C-alpha cells in the first residue's frame, strides 16, 4: 500500500509518496502556474514514476495547501498548518516552534510535546516577507531568486529597510541601488526585515522563544540568508530539512497513511 500527500500552494505544487511503513519513496516540486489540475497531475506523475508504481496502487491521498479542495482524488483535505506540523515533527521530533514561509503567507506554529498544533498565527492582511515578496525583491535586484540565498555574504548589516510593503520595498531597493549601496547590504537588510516580521509572528504563539527548539519549512527556507537572519534574531539554531518545501506534502502523506490504515 502507498500513501500520497499533495500540497497545492500558490507558487509550487508538491507531492510526497510513502510506502506502507511510512518511508519516503519519492517527492516532487513543480510550479503551480495558472492550471492547478495540471500541476497536481505533474507532481503526482513524478513521484509515481520515481517509485515505479501506478496511481491505482495508492491507498489514500490527503491534500493540503490553499488549493487543497481542488485535489480530486483526496480522501481528506487538511490545512497546511496541521500538515506542516505533522511533517516537521516526523523530521525533527521535539520541535516546539515551526516557522513556515510559503509563497503568499507565513505562519508560526507552536507544537506540544506530542507534536500536535497547540497554537498558530498567520501573517496579517498582506504577503510582505513571503515568497512572493522575495520574488519581487529579486526582480528589483535583477538576480535569480536562488541567487538571493548567498548574496548577503560579507554584509555589515548597516542597511535598514523602512517598509515591508512589497511595492514600497521594491522602490526602496531600486533607490538604494541607485544610491550605490552594495547589493549584499541591501539583501542583508531584506533578510533582517523578514526576520523581524517573523519574530513578531512567533511571539504571538510563544511569548518567549528562549531555549525553544525552532524549525523552518516552506520554500523560503531554501534561502540561507533568511535562515541566518532568523537564527540571529532568535539567537538559536533553526533546523531546516533538506527539502523544506515538501514538509507540508510529507505531513499530508503521513495523515493519509494514518487514515488509510485506520480505514482498512
Amino acid at each position, binding site marked *: 500500500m502507498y500513501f500520497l500527500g499533495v500540497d497545492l500552494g500558490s507558487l509550487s505544487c508538491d507531492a510526497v509518496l510513502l510506502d506502507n511503513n511510512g518511508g519516503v519513496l519519492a517527492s516532487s516540486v513543480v510550479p503551480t502556474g495558472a492550471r492547478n489540475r495540471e500541476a497536481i497531475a505533474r507532481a503526482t506523475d513524478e513521484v509515481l514514476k520515481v517509485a515505479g508504481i501506478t496511481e491505482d496502487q495508492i491507498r489514500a491521498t490527503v491534500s493540503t495547501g*490553499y488549493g487543497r479542495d481542488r485535489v480530486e482524488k483526496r480522501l481528506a483535505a487538511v490545512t*497546511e*498548518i*496541521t500538515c506542516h506540523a505533522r511533517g516537521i515533527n516526523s523530521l525533527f521530533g521535539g520541535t516546539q516552534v515551526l516557522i513556515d514561509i510559503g509563497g503568499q*503567507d507565513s505562519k508560526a506554529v507552536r507544537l*506540544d510535546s506530542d507534536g*500536535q*498544533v497547540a497554537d498558530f*498565527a498567520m501573517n496579517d492582511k498582506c504577503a510582505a516577507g513571503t515568497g512572493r515578496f522575495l520574488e519581487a525583491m529579486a526582480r528589483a535586484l535583477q538576480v535569480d531568486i536562488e541567487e538571493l540565498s548567498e548574496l548577503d555574504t560579507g554584509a555589515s548589516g548597516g542597511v535598514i529597510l523602512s517598509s515591508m510593503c512589497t511595492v514600497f520595498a521594491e522602490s526602496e531597493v531600486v533607490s538604494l541601488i541607485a544610491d550605490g549601496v552594495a547589493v549584499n547590504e541591501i539583501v542583508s537588510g531584506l533578510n533582517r526585515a523578514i526576520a523581524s516580521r517573523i519574530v513578531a509572528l512567533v511571539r504571538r504563539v510563544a511569548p518567549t522563544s528562549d531555549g525553544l527548539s525552532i524549525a523552518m519549512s516552506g520554500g523560503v527556507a531554501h534561502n540561507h540568508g533568511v535562515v541566518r537572519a532568523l537564527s540571529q534574531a532568535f539567537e538559536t539554531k533553526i533546523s531546516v530539512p533538506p527539502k523544506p518545501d515538501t514538509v507540508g506534502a510529507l505531513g499530508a502523506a503521513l495523515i493519509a497513511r494514518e487514515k488509510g490504515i485506520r480505514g482498512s
Partner: protein
Amino acid sequence: MMLQYFQMLESRIDAKIRKTPDKPNARRKFALEIAKLGIRLYSGEHRVAWCGVVAPFDMLSAMNVTSCFVEFVGAMLAATGNVGMFLEESEHAGFGADTCGYHRAVIGAALKGLMPVPDVMIATTCPCTGGLAAMENLARMFNKELFVLDVPSSDTPESVQYLANQYKDMIRFIGSRTGESLDEGKLRKAIEKSNRARELMVEVYRLAENVPSPSNGRSLANFGIVMALFLGTDAGIQIAQAYRDEFEEMIRNGQSGVPEEKVRLLWLQNRIQFKNPLIKMLEQEYQASIVIDELNDITWEAIDTADPFTGIAKRTITMPLNGEINRRLNHVRHLSKAYKIDGAINPCHWGCRQGTGARGLIQAGLKELGIPVVNLEVDCVDTRNFAEGQLRTRLEAFMEMLQTNPSGLRD
C-alpha cells in the same frame, strides 16, 4: 433603495411566517421587526433620530421617536450586498479606507442622499470615538445640531447621576426639536416593557447555555445589540418571547441548533455582516456551533420605574464595552465558563481600534482559562476585502487544532 429593500424584506419574511403560523419562527420574527423598523426609519412618515450605539432607545421610543444607531445602517447596507458603492463614496470624500467599514458605509450612504435627514441626532462617546466622529460628520452634512451623551467609564454614584442628568437635558433637546414632551406615564410603560423583554432575554440566554445548545451560528447573530432598538416596545417582548418558546421547545424535543454539536464557540465582538460561507462551513464540516456572542448578554439589572433615569444610566455605564478592557475581559471569561466554550473566534474587524487594540489582552485572558482564540483579520462590512481562502484556512486549522488538542470548559 433602502425603503424598497426593507419593504421587500418585510413581505418576504411575512409570507414565510404565514406558511407556518404555529411555529415560534423566532429568527423570522426578529428579522420582520428589523424590516419594520427600517421602513419606519426610511418612510418619511415618522420622527427619526440617528444615534450612537448606547443611546437610551426605550426613552426615545416613549417620545415617539423612531431611532437607531448608525452602525445598524452600515450593517444593513452590507447585508444588501451593495455596500461597495457607499464605501467608495466615503473614500472619494477623503475617509481613510482603513477606518471602520460601518461608519464609512453610513457616511457614503449619506453622501449619496440615501440617509433621511433626521429630526434629531444623539451621539454617544461610548463604545468608540470613531462612532462619535461619524456622527459629527453626519450632523455637519445634515446641518443638524448634535447632542452628545458623554458616557463616563467608572461605575460610581456620581457618574451615574452625571449621565442621568444628561438624559434630562437630552429630553429637553428632543422636545425643542420635535415639540414632543416626555409623558411620565409613557416612559413608565416603556420601562416596564424593557424590563419584561430583559426577563425574557435572560431566559433565552440561559436556555442557549444548554449542552447541546438550541442556538447556532445564525439564530442569535446580532441579537443583543439590535434588541436594544426594541427595548420599550411590544415588539421587543414578542421577539424575546418567540426565542424563549423556540429554545424551550427544542430542548424539550432533544433538538440542537447544530445537529450532533461537537464544538462550542464564542464569537467576539461583531459579526461579519454580509453573506459568507464560513458559519455554514463550521457547522456542516465540523459540527461547530457559535453558541454565544460577546454582544449577546444582559449585564443590567431591572430598571426602577420610579427612577428610570438612574437605572438607564447604570445600564449604560456598566456595559462591558465601556471603560477599561478588564471589564470586557471579565465578561468574556464569564461567558466562556457559562456556555462551556471550546474556543473563541475574534474577527478583529478592520478599522476597529477599540476592538483590535484589546486583541492580545483578550487572547491572553482566555488562554488562562484554556480557551484558544483564532484571530481572523476581516472587515465585517467591506465585501471587497473578504479573503475567503485565508479565512477558511484559519478557521479550519483552528478546528483541526481543537479536534486533536481538545480544550475548553466542558465538564
